[in-house]
Each structure stands twice: as structure tokens, then as C-alpha cells.
């Protein structure tokens, strides 16, 4: 979240101090990478997401734009938008999971394989949410941000975030249930 150091770094980055930009990159690229991998499931794509996020940040600074504060929220917004574009062009398949996979966790395929399948299923389901619903779910339940931070990332009031979370969870449940049951009902 926002700290005095973040604000100071931003001011120096606005002046195009290479050191400040390097510190910003070192501070935020690991977390952004993890965020991207969690949603995209591919390391190469995640690296591309990080590169594009910081490239757009630089472009904004060069044009005299960019954030004045809350750098983390700003960078996550850029990454989120890039990932949304990826989903639009390459939406992950929502393949029904075989319910029998959970019957005997000791049987083949292994637990790790099951969990990987579930991760893919989760990513596919998340891709079917609206961009805002997806961002609030991931930031809240995967990245474990507080509501104030999520509100800054989405540029929405905190109260709106709670309502959005509720709708997003309901939508996600319906999508996952339809995937497990193989039905066509995936309304949001």
C-alpha cells in the first residue's frame, strides 16, 4: 500500500531518475509477475505482461502523465487491463472437470495434476467474469488486498467494492457449477 517512500519514489520517477525507476521495478515486478502467472498460467505470458506494464508506465511518465500516488494500484490496473485484452483474444477453455477426479486423491492422476487442472478451471472461470469482477476477486482472495487497496486499484468507492465482491462471487460460483455439471448456464 501507499507509503511515504512510494510517494518519494514517484516524484523522483517523474523527474526521470534512473535510480528511482530501478527501485520501482525491483519493488513491484516480482508481485506483478506472480499476479500475471496466477491469472494467465504461463510464465512467458506473465513476463510479457510485466514488460508491457512497465513500458506503459514509462510511456505515461514520458508524456507527463502517470500516477501522483498509489503506484501499486496504478501498476496493477495496467497489468489487469493487459490481461483482460489477452482474455478477449485468447479466452481459456472452460472444460468440465471429471467429478471422479476427487474420489480417491491417492489414485492416479496425482494430487498435483488434479490441482493443476483445477487451477486451469479457475482461470477459465475467472476469464468469464467482467473485468472488474475478476479484478476484485483476484485482489481480494488471491492477492489478499484489503478493500481500501482494491478500491484504489479499481478507482471505485470502498462501499462499491463490497457489492462488487458479492456479485462477483455469485457469478464465479455459477460458472464453476456449470462447468462441473457440464451445463450451458453461465450467466453472470
Amino acid at each position, binding site marked *: 500500500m501507499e507509503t511515504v517512500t512510494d510517494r518519494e519514489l514517484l516524484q523522483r520517477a517523474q523527474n526521470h531518475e534512473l535510480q528511482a525507476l*530501478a527501485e520501482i521495478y525491483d519493488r513491484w515486478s516480482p508481485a506483478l509477475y506472480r499476479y500475471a502467472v*496466477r*491469472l494467465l498460467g504461463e510464465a512467458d505470458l506473465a513476463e510479457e505482461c510485466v*514488460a508491457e506494464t512497465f*513500458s506503459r508506465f*514509462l510511456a505515461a511518465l514520458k508524456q507527463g502523465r502517470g500516477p501522483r500516488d498509489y503506484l501499486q494500484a496504478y501498476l496493477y490496473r495496467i497489468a489487469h487491463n493487459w490481461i483482460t485484452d489477452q482474455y478477449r483474444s485468447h479466452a481459456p477453455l472452460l472444460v468440465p472437470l471429471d467429478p471422479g477426479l476427487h474420489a480417491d486423491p491417492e489414485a492416479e492422476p496425482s494430487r498435483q495434476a488434479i490441482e493443476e487442472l483445477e487451477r486451469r478451471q*479457475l482461470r477459465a472461470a475467472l476469464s468469464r467474469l467482467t473485468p472488474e469482477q475478476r479484478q476484485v*476477486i483476484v485482489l481480494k482472495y488471491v492477492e489478499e488486498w484489503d478493500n481500501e487497496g482494491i478500491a484504489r486499484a479499481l478507482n471505485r468507492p470502498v462501499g462499491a467494492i463490497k457489492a462488487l465482491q458479492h456479485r462477483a462471487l455469485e457469478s464465479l460460483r455459477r460458472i464453476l457449477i456449470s462447468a462441473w455439471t457440464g451445463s450451458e448456464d453461465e450467466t453472470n
Partner: protein
Amino acid sequence: MDRLELLRGVPARDPQAAAAGRAHFLAQAEAAGALRPVRAQRRPGRSFLPAFPLRATPAFKALAAVLLVLALFFAGAASSVAAAQGSLPGEALYPLKTLSEDVLLSLAPSSPDRLSLTLDFGDRRLVEMTGLQSAGRPIPQGVVDRFEGELDQALQLAAGMSDPGMAQSLDRLSRRTQGQMQAMAVLVEHNPDAPLLADAYARLQEQAGTAELGKSDPQGFRLKVNQLFPGKNGTPGNGNKTPPGLEGTPGPNGNGSGGGSAQGTPDHGQDGKGGHKATKTPGGHGRAYGTPAATRESGEDSHH
């Protein structure tokens, strides 16, 4: 929604990809800074040098005049210095780039400012080495020497600070060193027959360890730095003088000047002439990095 926790586990990031991404970003940042309109870079009372809180002292004005002459010599006005910031070793404007770095260091008003610059310049060296490697060009020894000199300089500057300032500086130095290690690891990977790069990587590992020592034992850190660099005051261009912030730093021989180390000991090469040059071999002062005839290139035995 407990199942969402499944998404939290992420495999370790590929350090090579991470380092390449970092180097690419810094190269973009440097190019973006160099390409900014000169008018946008100027602030009242400042020169064409990159933005930095400098005071218009008589020394600064004299040096600015010298730089102006040099910039005009290199067939450009102030924009030559800005354009030089993106140059690589061996290119025509690269000496202007290193000269402007030396001037900035000489004019920096405080040790934390000098440390900031030194860390910046270390990153620049890595960007240059990465750029050379990407272009299939060998990496000159002089660039590696200068980089190691900047590492030395950073330690000495930190050692000369008071405990609170040193703690903050070492924290910054540590983070920067970690990033630099990642980038250097990629360079070593792509240049397996370049012992200089492997040495530089080992040097970075030492740097990281020394910085960690400083965080827990400031006095022990100072002693170690003084053992590593006996009598060096960590400030370029000051010859025998001890700069502000480094008073009282003990040294057995008080030798803080000279044209570099004659015995090849780690020494960032204070030449007493306003320059900060890394010299690991005798006669390093004034050597033009990247000049093919003058350098033993680290990649000469490389398979590429």
C-alpha cells in the same frame, strides 16, 4: 472460494527472464530520458546535465564551461550530452557519457547523493554490457572495471555515513545489488568463457554479503571496508581531501589520490582530476573504455 487459494502458489520465476526484463526496462528508461527534449530537462539555474539538485558554485560553472566546449567538440550543442547517455562502449559519444558521470559525481553535494549516482551508474554499466551482448559485441574489460569500481565506491560511501544514514543506504544498496546480480547472471550465462564477468558476478555476491554485514553490524562493516580500501576516501576528484560525511574514516596510509592503484588492488581510481574512474591495472587513468586497441576484451575467448 477456498479453492481460489490454489492460485496463490506460483513456481519460482526464471532468474534469466527476470534479469532480461529488468535490463530491458532500464534500457528503455535510459533511452526515454536521453530522448526527452532538452528544454524539458532544464530547470532554472541548471545546465544541460541530467536533472540533479546541483548548486551553481564557481567550480560548477567552470566545469560546465569545460563540458560545453567538449560538447561542441563532439559536434553538437547541449543535446550531445543528452544523446550520449544512451551510447555504448566503443561508440563515439561514450567518452562524453562517462565524463558527464564523473562530473556529476564530483559535483554531488552529499554522500547519499553520490551513492545514488553511483548505484545508478552501476545499473548503466549492466545495461551497457547487456546491450553489447545482445548486439553480439564483446564486452570491454574497461566497462567491467568501471562497474567494479562503482561497487567499491558504493561501499566506501556507505561506510562514511552515520549509522542511520548508512542503514538506509545499505538497504538501497542491497536491493540494487540483488537486481544487478540477476542481470550479471544472465551475462555470465551467455559469456561462459569470460572470466572477467564471472569475477564481476563473484564481486557482486561479495557486495551483497558486505551490505548485509553493514545492516547488522555498522562498525564491523566500516572496519571491513577500511580493510578492503585502506586510506581511500570514497570521493572522486578530491585527491587527498576527505569529503563531508567521510571524516574520521581511518586509513593506514592516508593515500586518497593518485592515478589509480598501481598494484591492481580493487580501487575505483581517484585520479585527483575530477574523475571517477575504475582502475584495476596500472595506468588506468584516462583509458578510453571501449577503444579496441586499448582494451583486453572480456569476450575474446567467448565462443560467440
